[in-house]
């Protein structure tokens, strides 16, 4: 009775599943790219995925790969859905994947425990679990160039430098999921030590496009500054609402996921003055980006809709993600002396990465971002962010790199990491020097 037909299909598929091609050609570097070109957040996912793929394609075209080994980027579509992300992981890990960029907090959390078992590092660039910055506790996870917590401390430093933060009221509007709530412990901690007051405005996922209630409260509370941890449709809505209640937009700062061209293009002129944090340069002027245009975009090998999209905030961030990986691969190749490396070598490469200003210049990315240096204990690089301002039709860098408050944040990160591993006795850490 029951699943007879299904059984037959299943058996047929089982054989098909076994026969899936696993072998890769000699000397290639296989990097799966979990994308979300579909689904509710596709607007942000597409430029990121384009920048990521184009940089590796450029290396293949210009230099013949990395250290003589071609890079194979295989995209797997997650639609920002954790279950599909895990499926993508299972589908690609057997092909010799070097590293995973989960591109979603949910998928990152699902992959963190798997990474040490399968020996494939997870590189969640500026998202995911902040506590993963502690290399002793999370040997296989990297959050370069910095964490959400560090970013928040940099933003507060900016506020402090622009009129002081003491005795001010700071409004925090955030997406009411794990991602948005993550900085809350730090915010509360700093509000005591720095002496400011916090007003919180959660925005539910379903109310992303209807924030009138929150902004009504903002109008009532009159915070001196607003900080936003938003994503997707929440960002343009918030900026529009802020403009509507005449909140001074140059006192409204978004985090680095709340400050892309996709977010503000639909707001346009009325969003003029809005600030956002960022860690990757804007525009096409960098020689590396020019190389992408020459070697990939002009040859029609890129998926970008138009050439103008190259160099926008999220495109460049996707590219930066690829830059860090390419650099880590080189470090790993130098250590092993072989062209094709394993996930464990990749982990070494990521841990010993050193993207200083000289190296960035060599790569054609002078001034693109701050220097990045990893170590066994430090998996975040404690990088700096800068602030950019929306001019009405484009982003403009308005501040220098702002260092995070490492002295405050680091102990909190260590505490969080301890908490994460406390109920997982089987979670393997590493001893650092």
């Amino acid at each position: 009775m029951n699943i007879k037909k299904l059984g037959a299909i299943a058996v047929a598929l089982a054989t098909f599943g076994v026969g899936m091609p696993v072998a890769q050609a000699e000397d290639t570097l296989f990097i799966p790219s979990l994308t979300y070109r579909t689904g509710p957040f596709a607007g942000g996912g597409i430029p990121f995925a384009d920048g990521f793929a184009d940089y590796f394609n450029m290396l293949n075209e210009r230099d013949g790969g990395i250290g003589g080994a071609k890079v194979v980027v295989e995209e797997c579509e997650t639609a920002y859905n954790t279950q599909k992300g895990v499926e993508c992981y299972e589908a690609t890990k057997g092909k010799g994947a070097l590293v995973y960029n989960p591109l979603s907090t949910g998928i990152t959390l699902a992959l963190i425990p798997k990474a040490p078992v399968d020996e494939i590092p997870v590189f969640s660039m500026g998202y995911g679990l902040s506590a993963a910055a502690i290399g002793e506790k999370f040997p296989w996870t990297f959050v370069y160039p910095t964490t959400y917590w560090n970013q928040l401390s940099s933003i507060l430093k900016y506020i402090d430098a622009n009129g002081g933060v003491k005795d001010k009221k700071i409004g925090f509007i955030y997406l009411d999921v794990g991602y948005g709530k993550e900085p809350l412990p730090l915010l509360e901690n700093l509000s005591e030590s720095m002496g400011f007051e916090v007003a919180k405005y959660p925005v539910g996922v379903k109310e992303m496009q209807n924030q009138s209630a929150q902004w009504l409260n903002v109008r009532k509370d009159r915070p001196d500054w607003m900080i936003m941890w938003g994503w997707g449709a929440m960002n343009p809505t918030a900026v529009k609402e802020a403009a509507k209640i005449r909140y001074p937009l140059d006192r409204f700062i978004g985090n680095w996921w709340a400050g892309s061209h996709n977010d503000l293009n639909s707001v346009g002129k009325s969003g003029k003055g809005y600030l956002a944090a960022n860690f990757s340069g804007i525009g096409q002027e960098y020689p590396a980006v020019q190389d992408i245009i020459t070697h990939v975009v002009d040859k029609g090998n890129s998926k970008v809709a138009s050439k103008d999209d190259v160099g926008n905030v999220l495109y460049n961030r996707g590219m930066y993600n690829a830059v860090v990986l390419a650099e880590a691969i080189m470090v790993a190749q130098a250590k092993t002396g072989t062209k094709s490396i394993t996930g464990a070598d990749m982990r070494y490469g990521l841990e010993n990465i050193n993207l200083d200003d000289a190296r960035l210049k060599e790569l054609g990315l002078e001034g693109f971002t701050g220097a990045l240096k990893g170590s066994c204990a430090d998996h975040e690089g404690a990088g700096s962010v800068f602030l950019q301002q929306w001019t009405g039709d484009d982003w403009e860098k308005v501040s220098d790199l702002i260092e995070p408050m490492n002295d405050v944040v680091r102990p909190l990160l260590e505490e969080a990491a301890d908490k994460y591993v406390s109920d997982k006795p089987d979670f393997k850490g590493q001893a650092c020097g």
Partner: protein
Amino acid sequence: MLYREAGQFKTTYADDQALLPIAQDRIGLLLILIVAFVAMPMFASEFFLSSIMIPFLVFSLAAIGLNILMGFAGQLSLGTGAFMGVGAYSCYKMTTIFPDLNILIVLLLSGLFSAAIGVVFGLPSLRIKGLYLAITTLAAQFFLEWCFIRIEWLYNYNDSGAIEVPQRMLFGLAITGPHATPITRYLVILSVVAVMTLVAANVLRGRIGRSWMMIRDMDIAAELMGIRPLFSKLSAFAFSSYYCGVAGALMVFFWLGSAEVESFDINHSFLILFMVIIGGMGSLTGCFMGAAFIWVLPVILRAIPTAFELDILAATMEHISSIVIGVLIIFFLIVEPHGLARLWRVGKEKLRTWPFPYAN
């Protein structure tokens, strides 16, 4: 042809009342079980087990849960995702509070919490019916989702707001956590689903199941014949939510490994609703067919370009698979509005009377 029953005589009442009265069905089921328990773990690849079979079984169980409520007791529910969440969160809470308690016991206990919540949200069903009831279960969905975000105790005050599965052992073998191999996880899920399906099949053809079906077909008539609607409806809610809860706990503990509230959102309620409708309301076979159709088919479609090394963008394939699935849903619902299970049943009847199509 295959189903010729000639020579199968039933000499006792027990034979006549057997779960599978036809010998071919028994052999077929046995073959399926042998394939599932022996052949699959031996021959299937890791990807096949962890990305196709495990989710398929989890969703089948959830679909059975919803089908009990919708297909057998006639109470429309849109809260399946949230009831799965209750199971998952209570399983997580219990196993972190009592780490030494066997995870399988915890798993089965966690369904009880889900059942209790299901009963509470089932109370309005005593007064309202149909679409109106669907709205109240929708309220359950939103309320419980809110709880999963707001009540930090539920996820042990994790900064990430997610529940993360700790490692648990059975007979010295890791069955949850990152060290559990797909084969062990698959076998655990398969055993749980097989046993629970058997229980459901027996409950449904027994007194309780029949009272649910009477309520479904006409509740006033059922009441006049001595069926207590209070007990029947609430027991249906409890039973259904228990299944959904265990499915949710299985989903997090044996498949995903960690879960945020998004894993239990309204989309999952709809997904399982579609499985039940496509598979066939009021049929356990249909639950498996529906789960295979809605979950497994897209996975296979997505795997086609890599398997044949076609140069199609993953995102394009995603769109194509949505289109194909959508068209197939419409096609099957036009061909057979009662679902895939009905198609199978019709086919089986034809086979039983072959070559005399006019026999009944």
